[in-house]
């Protein structure tokens, strides 16, 4: 009698188990989540390492003439085609005064070192920029300071 009760109880358990499944369920399903990751870096960046000095010609000048130097950097070991945009002109103003000098004729070493149509320039690339200062015959002596912007575009 005791054995019968036990098996009847097991049968009831099994019946309860299967009846617990919803009869209307068409699918059993499971889900999970995954992350998406990506790192975005600028393909090109440009940083000044030396200012441009034009027309240093007096005993009071602090620095000799020198081209501006920029470091064009990108992905490690990368080779990229890029162009450089330079200003057509800029104005330098005398320190402590209001007199100005026009600086124009900006040019770089890019055209000869990294010509268009080449497979690319190895990075980092040392970009040199020069320019011409238009000094009037009666230009007041002094130190003239201005700024200009260099932009690199990846092709």
């Amino acid at each position, binding site marked *: 009698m005791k054995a019968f009760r036990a098996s009847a109880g097991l049968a009831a358990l099994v019946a309860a188990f299967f009846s617990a499944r919803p009869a209307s369920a068409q699918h059993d399903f499971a889900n999970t989540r995954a992350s*998406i990751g*990506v790192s975005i870096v600028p393909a090109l960046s440009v940083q000044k390492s030396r200012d441009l000095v034009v027309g240093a010609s007096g005993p009071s000048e602090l620095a000799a003439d020198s081209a501006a130097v920029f470091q064009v950097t990108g992905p490690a070991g990368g080779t990229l085609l890029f162009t450089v945009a330079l200003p057509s002109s800029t104005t330098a103003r005398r320190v402590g005064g209001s007199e100005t000098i026009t600086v124009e004729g900006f040019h770089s070493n890019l055209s000869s070192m990294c010509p268009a149509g080449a497979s690319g320039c190895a990075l980092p690339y040392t970009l040199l920029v020069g320019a011409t200062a238009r000094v009037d015959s009666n230009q007041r002596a002094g130190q003239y300071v201005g700024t200009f912007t260099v932009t690199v575009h990846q092709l």
Partner: protein
Amino acid sequence: MKRSCAKPSPLLAAAGVFLLAAACAGQTCTGPPPSIAIAKTADLNFGSLGATASAGTAVIDPATGGRTVTGGVVGLSGSFNAAGFSVLLCGLAGPKRFTVVLPSSAVTLNGSGGGTMTVDTFTQNPANPISGNTIATTPFTVGATLHVGASQTPGTYTGVFSVTVTRP
């Protein structure tokens, strides 16, 4: 990565859920058999990309794990991979196959530098339905398309997507 799973004895069908849960650590069935369980084995990783003044895309192919870039996006060195999942069918009854349901709308990624990007066009390999079994897990992979904006803000971007598997 295969995870084997003990086959439940028919005599112990009532206890099958608990046997499976014990036998498949890390991958368990939540419902009574026949049921299904899924585990993630790899996150979707587009690797390292260079942003330029032109917008573009990066696509991960789930079949090959390869990456293709279009537009102004530059593919940089470093690892990238499709997302990976493994599926275990639980219980002896029912067809031995399952269907994967991927996001139908775009997922937004947020960047450490403040920008956002979207990921859409999720694809899978193999195609639905996928044959599975109750003894070992069945793997499948998921790829997608990442949309990178013009001059996209640099940074590390992360997001989350959900994958559902159903068993007929």
